[in-house]
């Protein structure tokens, strides 16, 4: 009788093909670990979130107190909550590095267009999930952040105000809003899980890109053991980084105003979103017109989605694209600059700097990406002619 082989069984064989024996380029560096770290972040957020939901109460009178109940009375509750709250920040740090890696090495370029676009969809879902999650503790920033951001929909002509009322479930951010946000905050992570599976499926259609950006079929090694042991190093390093925040600086990434219970009668001096939204918030604020600001945010995501289709470079890796490499670091610096501008008051010189940084953001994606590919290509042919 033939011996039973586990890896030839249904389901298990699929897992084996994609998660164990999967051939990966031998030369991918530690920046490729951020994909699996992002997966870990998602699992951590869902696991801690499920336990937090067992103790949390989505009601305007009780939400703030139930969070403090978790912090003080639930065994290990502070650990769960600090892990969840800081986990959101970690998730964004990891995903931003993951995306910049894709940008640097041209991982979005043909034939991986769909892979990149699904990634952008995941980013959008993450932003929505994180935003409504921040509303749940029902502190001052929760309430006023929710009010400001949902009000953006009112910029849409004709139906804008109706959409805002529909989002709120009433005529102001209130109990109905909190309830639906809690419901959606529980739902959306599972949508992200689904999108991540599609992301992985799209990745495995053509396999990982690599630091050379070339076809790596000549030299691939098994995901197991090589990239399990390599990613393990990255996972543990990430766990240490994450732990420093949870155990020693649990509130450094948050805003003190969110430890004041929500009060619709008192507006905080400055309403600031979480740090990971500041770059896009800065772009929104750099335009004095509300509708145009919302359109600019839409354009950010349209630019990201369009990236693989307007890219003209036949070379993927920026290691071999001297001009793009400079612009890559400029867009990294530009994003950091926008994040800084996003937390400044709306006054000069921050307005002007923010506007310049916003313009550069779009110049990079909509002009430099298509232009530099052609330009560098031209230089290569000029030299060889």
């Amino acid at each position, binding site marked *: 009788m033939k011996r039973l082989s586990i890896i030839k069984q249904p389901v298990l064989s699929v897992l084996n093909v994609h998660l164990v024996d999967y051939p990966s380029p*031998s*030369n991918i560096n530690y920046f490729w670990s951020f994909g699996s770290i992002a997966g870990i972040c998602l699992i951590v957020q869902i696991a801690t979130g499920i336990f937090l939901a067992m103790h949390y109460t989505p009601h305007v009178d009780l939400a703030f*107190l139930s969070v*403090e109940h978790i*912090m*003080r009375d639930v065994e290990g509750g*502070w*650990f769960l909550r*600090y892990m969840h709250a800081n986990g959101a920040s970690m998730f964004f740090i990891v995903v931003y590095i993951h995306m910049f890696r894709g940008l640097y090495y041209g991982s979005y370029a043909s034939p991986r267009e769909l892979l990149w676009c699904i990634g952008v969809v995941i980013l959008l879902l993450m932003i929505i999930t994180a935003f409504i999650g921040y509303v749940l503790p029902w502190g001052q920033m929760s309430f006023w952040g929710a009010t400001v951001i949902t009000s953006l929909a009112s910029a849409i002509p004709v139906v804008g105000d109706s959409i805002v009322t529909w989002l709120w479930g009433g005529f102001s951010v209130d109990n109905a809003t909190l309830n639906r946000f809690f419901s959606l905050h529980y739902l959306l992570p599972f949508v992200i899980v689904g999108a991540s599976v599609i992301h992985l499926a799209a990745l495995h259609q053509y396999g990982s890109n690599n*630091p*050379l950006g070339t076809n790596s079929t000549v*030299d691939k*090694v098994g995901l197991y*053991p*090589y990239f399990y*042991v*390599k990613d*393990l*190093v990255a996972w*543990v*390093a990430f*766990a*240490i980084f994450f*732990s*420093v925040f*949870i*155990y*020693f600086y*649990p*509130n450094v990434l948050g805003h*003190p*105003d969110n*430890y*004041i219970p929500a009060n619709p009668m008192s507006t905080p*001096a400055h309403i600031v979103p979480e740090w990971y939204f500041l770059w896009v918030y800065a772009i929104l604020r750099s335009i004095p017109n509300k509708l145009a600001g919302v359109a600019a945010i839409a354009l950010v995501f349209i630019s990201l989605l369009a990236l693989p289709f307007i890219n003209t470079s036949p070379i993927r890796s*920026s*290691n071999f694209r001297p001009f793009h*490499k*400079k612009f*890559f*670091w*400029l867009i*990294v*610096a530009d994003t*950091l*600059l926008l*994040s*800084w501008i996003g*937390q*400044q*008051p709306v006054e000069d010189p921050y307005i002007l700097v923010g506007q310049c940084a916003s313009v550069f953001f779009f110049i990079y994606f909509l002009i430099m990406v298509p232009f530099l590919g052609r330009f560098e290509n031209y230089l290569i042919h000029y030299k060889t002619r």
Partner: protein
Amino acid sequence: MLRQLLSRAAPGWKLGAATLAAGTAGLAAAAGTALADEAEHGLHAPSYPWPHDGFFSSYDHRSIRRGYQVYTQVCATCHSMDLIHYRDLVGVCYTEEEAKEMALNIEVTDGPNDEGEMFERPGKLSDKLPAPYMNEEHARYANGGAYPPDLSLITKARHDGQNYVFSLLLGYREPPAGITVREGLYYNPYFPGGAIAMPKMLNDGGVEYDDGTPATEAQQAKDVVTFLSWAAEPEMDERKLMGTKWIAVLSLVFLTTVYYKRWKWAPLKSRRVIVDVVN
């Protein structure tokens, strides 16, 4: 060949690191400039060396106990601490017997009883610290329209909370020339706007400590801030201890994984690839 290509890429990473460093410095500078407008946001408090602030430091529990005495003898006349129960003090700054006895001294409205009536009873460990006012309206009425905030989370609910509260408590002075403060308000440069409804509350000898520590104004401020820090983050001692152990263990695990990775990758790293043309 792969190595050569990768080493050629190195200068790019140096440029990148420089850009990143510049960007990070910019973000760090944000903390300094965010509160530049001190007239509007209040004078930024100086940074004091809190003994429990260090990576491996725990609270000074004697100071928490004295701070509790400052709170009950001074602050509690106007400020509630709704998140703190007598049971929370047990093992932190009082024994169970002491906490029970303190709880017995308060009257708590409980009920309804079998006859549907509310009744008064002595406090228990599970009771909250008594609130001075029935509700916000009552508090505002008694304080000329100002609402003394609940202090349970105050050091976490203000920017640089510990230093802010400490500076605020000791920051009362005569308004400088040219600044007039409305009747019923007091000049305090650390308070946003400079005029605060709370009068100067701490005075030398204004509190009696049960451990005989001389109750100077600054001593009271330091102790009450330590107590309030504990109230806002009662888990801090446990959290830091757990974190220290966890990160110590994880660091050893990290070294192990580095070794494990190098060991597993040794065959790949030491191979020689010969590109040859057949025929």
